[in-house]
């Protein structure tokens, strides 16, 4: 047990302590430069309260224009038919499923930061969890676009839900795709609930500072009359812990079920039991990549260096390194099993992945996902925000290619060589996907501008003076 215990109720025996003479463990503080409560409130509220900065309008304009590609792509798809995408036999799951899995995976780091790190009492999560949760919600929005429009006749999308159709037939629950409907919609809903509940005390802070009537009304309504009473906090903290406890199995199950979409099929390259853990590790990996991509610029723009410290970036880099290495392990294990399983179709599928017609996608995937995060072993790299940001972009690119490799290489070259094909996306595919980055950015910019970007109450809680026993153990 650590001697620098943070729980004051466990007091080490002074006699033992005198004998052991524990060395103090110097950990960098989570909030630097001895900032106080008021500074934190002011810093974070001001982002919402100040005049909209010019850079925001520029980014918002660019993001809206980018988002219009998705809107136009979808309008064209609905009015013409799903054939405007590059889907053709034998690859009938093209970019749509790739983009869906990509975006859902991005979301997972948000839940990991807010839920799993909360259960593990990792206090450093406080300054990044709100933005990461927002990222989750918006990534799920982007993800949901693809399966919904992939059905082609969008006006029948309600067939997915447990509502009888015109022939009084219900959805059939033996299909992993139906499980996916429940997994993704639950994930989206619970992520919103968790995100919203975490925001209530901070919305109340903005309400209490409000100088305009609109702000008092807008933040007041959503703050639900929160009064910061200890009784409120008591129920709130337990509810938060429970939601974290519920989100943890949820986030693990969602990508597991997403991987069932593939793993339950008979196709070589998809039909493997390694998929659930491998997908979950990949999802967390890509999500941390995205968190870094988003937080580093925000930190620079708003001067949040005292709250998002080098320690935070270090930890995120290390998790990216760990999960990236896990993903690399999964890649090699897939090859081992393909050989060890002695199934000629299976071993062909993997040799074909690496050296077949999609070799370039496989190479991109391995170099971005396995090789590039290895740079995080070096402190010099982790301490260089520009380098971290560039590597995080590599991670995003690599993870998109991973889903492409899995979905397309397996479908393009299956059992019978006469039915092989080569999948190329159409321009509509490309623009629709490109546009989702705009959709995501529009939502994220609105979040940054109008909602508390960081959980003020939680950051105040990790200050040393927030501990009611602060200073009690100093004389030991």
């Amino acid at each position: 047990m650590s001697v620098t215990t943070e729980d004051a109720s466990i007091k080490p025996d002074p006699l033992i302590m005198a004998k052991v003479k524990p060395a103090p463990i110097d950990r960098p503080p989570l909030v630097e430069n001895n900032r106080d409560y008021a500074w934190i409130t002011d810093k974070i509220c001001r982002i919402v309260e100040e005049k909209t900065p010019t850079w925001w309008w520029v980014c918002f304009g660019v993001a809206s224009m980018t988002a219009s590609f998705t809107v136009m792509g979808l309008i064209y798809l609905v009015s013409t038919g799903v054939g405007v995408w590059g889907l053709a036999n034998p690859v009938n799951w093209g970019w749509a499923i790739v983009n869906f899995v990509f975006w859902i995976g991005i979301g997972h780091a948000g839940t990991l930061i807010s839920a799993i790190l909360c259960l593990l009492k990792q206090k450093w999560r406080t300054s990044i969890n709100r933005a990461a949760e927002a990222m989750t919600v918006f990534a799920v929005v982007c993800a949901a676009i693809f399966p919904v429009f992939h059905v082609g006749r969008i006006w029948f999308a309600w067939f997915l839900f447990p509502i009888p159709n015109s022939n009084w037939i219900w959805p059939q629950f033996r299909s992993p795709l139906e499980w996916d409907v429940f997994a993704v919609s639950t994930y989206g809903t619970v992520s919103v609930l968790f995100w919203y509940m975490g925001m209530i005390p901070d919305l109340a802070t903005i309400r209490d500072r409000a100088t305009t009537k609109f702000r008092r009304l807008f933040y007041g309504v959503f703050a639900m009359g929160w009064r910061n009473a200890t009784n409120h906090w008591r129920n709130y903290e337990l509810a938060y812990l429970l939601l974290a406890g519920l989100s943890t199995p949820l986030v693990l199950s969602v990508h597991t079920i997403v991987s069932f979409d593939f793993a339950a099929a008979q196709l070589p390259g998809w039909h493997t039991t390694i998929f659930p853990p491998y997908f979950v590790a990949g999802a967390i990996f890509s999500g941390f990549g995205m968190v870094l991509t988003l937080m580093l610029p925000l930190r620079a723009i708003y001067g949040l260096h005292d709250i998002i410290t080098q320690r935070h970036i270090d930890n995120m880099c290390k998790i990216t390194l760990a999960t990236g290495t896990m993903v690399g392990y999964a890649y090699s294990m897939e090859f081992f099993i393909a050989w060890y399983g002695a199934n000629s179709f299976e071993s062909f599928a993997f040799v074909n992945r690496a050296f077949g017609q999609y070799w370039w996608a496989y190479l991109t995937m391995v170099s971005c996902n396995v090789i590039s995060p290895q740079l995080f072993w070096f402190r010099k790299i982790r301490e260089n925000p520009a380098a971290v940001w560039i590597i995080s972009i590599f991670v995003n690119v690599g993870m998109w290619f991973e889903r492409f490799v899995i979905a397309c290489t397996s479908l393009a070259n299956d059992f019978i060589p006469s039915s092989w094909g080569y999948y190329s996306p159409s321009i509509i595919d490309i623009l629709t996907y490109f546009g989702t980055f705009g959709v995501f950015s529009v939502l994220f910019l609105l979040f940054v501008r109008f909602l508390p970007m960081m959980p003020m109450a939680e950051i105040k809680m990790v200050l040393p003076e927030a501990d009611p026993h602060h200073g009690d153990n100093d004389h030991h």
Partner: protein
Amino acid sequence: MNFNDYGLMATFSSAKDIYHACLKVREAGYTKWESFTPFPVHGLDKAMGMSRSKVPRFTLAGGLTGFTMATLMVWFMNAYDYPLNVGGKPFFTYIFPFPVMYEMNILLAAFGTLFGMFFLNRLPRHHHPLFENKSFLKCSDDRLTIVIEVIDPNYDEEETRKFLENLGATDVEVVQEDN
């Protein structure tokens, strides 16, 4: 307009001070009082004599409802109302719909948790006498306060004020209520 006294509001300068003050206020036998802090102070609820929160009951109720509902739903749709033979697979087992049961379990448990928290906190409540007081609003920024209400049987404006000042309150003021 008519104003009534609502209570006495005492401000403390640190989490440590309010923690010890709460222990004393409780010892002194006050019952209608509450502390307000911009962040949850570890152990303050216990110091005030509050029991463990009852939110988990709502979570459990939600979770059980979700799990049962999903089980019944799949059974009703795929085995009772319109059995559809798909590859000779059974119409109902507990195995294949498990992901659905699992997700619905989590979904309703999460709703139970959130709404349970609201219910136990008696929220939403947008109007509260304390909100009328400008300095109370600082409680969501950096102020830690204890409010002892007038309706407390032990309340006496002079005595209680003195008591709070002795506990180390930096500032004690009367909060009024709009009638």
